[in-house]
């Protein structure tokens, strides 16, 4: 048996380069013992190690669900914790790691005697979503090498709050500073640990984008239309979308001389032009973006639906998964795939927007459903009316396990001057030929 598989082990060792022969042989043996066909086993081993051997990521590019990545960074802090996993006590190590592009928190499953300040390279780590941020995980299956101390910035430098444009803020930023314009602002009372607190919420903008903000302390002077410089605001992540939080530790200063700034109230409130969907797919989430494309599919779950009156969840056969049998409220929505040739997103439309693009009110839809025997009448009709349609939508996008979704705040049929488009494109071809 061993002689038979030896050439295959050689072949794999050659193909994988930096993985030891013993390790490959052990893996292959194990798979063959479990009666995995040889070809399938070889393919699996290749896939497993190839992903390990080449995939260097920097902290700012971490996203949840990466496997077999390699990352370098300095341990900013690390603490030992005892957790119980399936009833068993286990010691794990968690802390934060930075590399000059950002900071992330990590969990190390095993004692690898790491200390704050260590500059290391971790091979074969992975990431998962934890506290709404990508968290780095590694353990004894990972390889750790120590780097020269001067290869990475000092800890203090990395945890310093960076001056950034809103469009460039990513989950790897924990503290940020920026110069922005307040475009929306309102006060809201919330219950915090049984106490009523007034927080300020709103939207900030600069020439690269917009982001929501929350201030946990009174803002004092600044109001809508004011330009401010803030320092040391903390970044929270919700559904991949950063939000800026002003706390006691944040300093905010109103700017009076705005002549040098590359944005104005007018420029940021103009309806932003459409971005290519492929750009949305690259990000965890985007705030207030516009896309346009064709509806190429209407997904199930569209049409008339029923919701639980208490928690607003969609119910199945009048039964809510947390409140049981309930008197349901009828609602209408559309879940569509919008595709512009560069990428595809799930577009989610509420009742109001659904009525607008579908061209029938929920009332009409209910009548239609009542006069037919099939429960899918409205869904089928939506497919017929909407598939292929060219529309534009504006809202927030976020990534989830099914891809990227855009929850629309507004939706419309773009005004399309076909003749002008033709002229523009013909001109483009014309200039192309002259070259």
């Amino acid at each position, binding site marked *: 048996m061993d002689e038979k598989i030896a050439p295959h082990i050689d072949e794999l060792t050659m193909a994988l380069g930096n993985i030891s022969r013993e390790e490959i042989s052990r893996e292959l043996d194990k798979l063959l013992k479990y009666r995995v066909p040889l070809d399938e086993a070889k393919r699996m081993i290749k896939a497993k190690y190839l992903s390990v051997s080449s995939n260097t990521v920097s902290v700012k590019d971490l996203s949840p669900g990466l496997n077999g990545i390699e990352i370098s960074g300095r341990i900013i802090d690390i603490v030992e914790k005892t957790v119980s996993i399936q009833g068993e006590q286990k010691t794990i190590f968690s802390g934060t790691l930075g590399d000059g592009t950002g900071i992330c928190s990590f969990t190390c499953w095993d004692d690898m005697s790491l200390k704050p300040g260590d500059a290391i390279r971790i091979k074969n780590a992975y990431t998962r979503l934890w506290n709404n941020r990508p968290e780095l995980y590694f353990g004894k299956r990972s390889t750790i090498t120590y780097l020269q101390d001067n290869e990475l910035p000092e800890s203090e430098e990395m945890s310093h709050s960076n001056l950034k444009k809103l469009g460039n803020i990513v989950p790897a930023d924990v503290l940020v500073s920026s110069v922005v314009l307040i475009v929306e602002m309102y006060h809201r009372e919330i219950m915090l640990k049984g106490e009523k607190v007034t927080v300020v919420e709103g939207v900030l903008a600069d020439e690269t984008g917009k982001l929501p903000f929350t201030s946990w302390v009174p803002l004092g002077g600044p109001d809508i239309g004011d330009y401010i410089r803030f320092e040391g605001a903390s970044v929270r992540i919700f559904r991949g979308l950063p939000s800026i939080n002003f706390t006691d530790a944040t300093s905010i200063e109103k700017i009076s001389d705005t002549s040098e700034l590359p944005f104005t109230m007018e420029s940021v409130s103009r309806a932003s032009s459409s971005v290519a969907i492929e750009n949305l797919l690259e990000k965890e989430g985007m705030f207030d973006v516009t896309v346009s494309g064709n509806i190429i599919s209407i997904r199930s779950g569209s049409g008339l639906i029923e919701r639980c009156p208490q928690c607003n969840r969609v119910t199945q056969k009048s039964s809510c998964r947390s409140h049981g049998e309930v008197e349901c409220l009828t609602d209408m929505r559309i879940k569509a795939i919008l595709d512009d040739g560069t990428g595809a997103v799930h577009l989610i439309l509420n009742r109001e927007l659904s009525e607008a693009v579908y061209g029938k009110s929920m009332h009409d839809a209910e009548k239609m459903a009542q006069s037919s025997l099939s429960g899918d009448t409205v869904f089928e009709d939506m497919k*017929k009316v909407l598939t292929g349609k060219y529309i534009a939508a504006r809202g927030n996008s976020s990534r989830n396990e099914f891809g990227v979704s855009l929850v629309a705040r507004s939706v419309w049929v773009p005004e399309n001057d076909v003749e002008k488009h033709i002229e523009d494109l013909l001109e483009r071809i014309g200039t*192309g030929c002259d070259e």
Partner: protein
Amino acid sequence: MAGYTREVARRIFAQEFRESNLSFKDGDDQYAPQYLLTPTGAKVNRIFIVGTLIEKEDIGTDSEYWRGRVTDPTGSFLIYAGQYQPEAAQVLAECETPAFVAVVGKPSTYTTNEGDVLTSVRPESLHIVDGQTRDMWVIETAKCTLDRIKELDGSSPNAQRAKEYYDPDAKHYSSMVSQALKSLKETY
């Protein structure tokens, strides 16, 4: 979560689609997605067409098997829908020709005994649309095609591979686009 992204529906004119014959899989897994690479470097797993359905015929022997021909300004696409494409087959069975239709589907290739590769579309969905949607499709497809022609000189792997395999004549395809746009212009 990083794993799944839906395959994009590419916009391709009929002429370019007909001139494509390089199909391949990404990876050697038996479930790896199948792609068709076109001469301007579009890597197509899903295609979106809006055109005029001018012919339809049930060519099935015992069960229904519909063949439709959908034209755009540059040529025509063949659409095959059988029992595994029930929605599309039903629309084909019920509709009148000619009609504007929007088709979302997968490209498929067939090699004849003579070695010629024929391309066709296996529709996931097929719906009747209006003339404006069709006109916008021509515009969008023109735009996408011009973008790809421009990219042919770039370093993207698809462009490189298309150049190597087809050695495409950029002029040939930009005049196809301009022909499509001009024919659209006549109707305005």
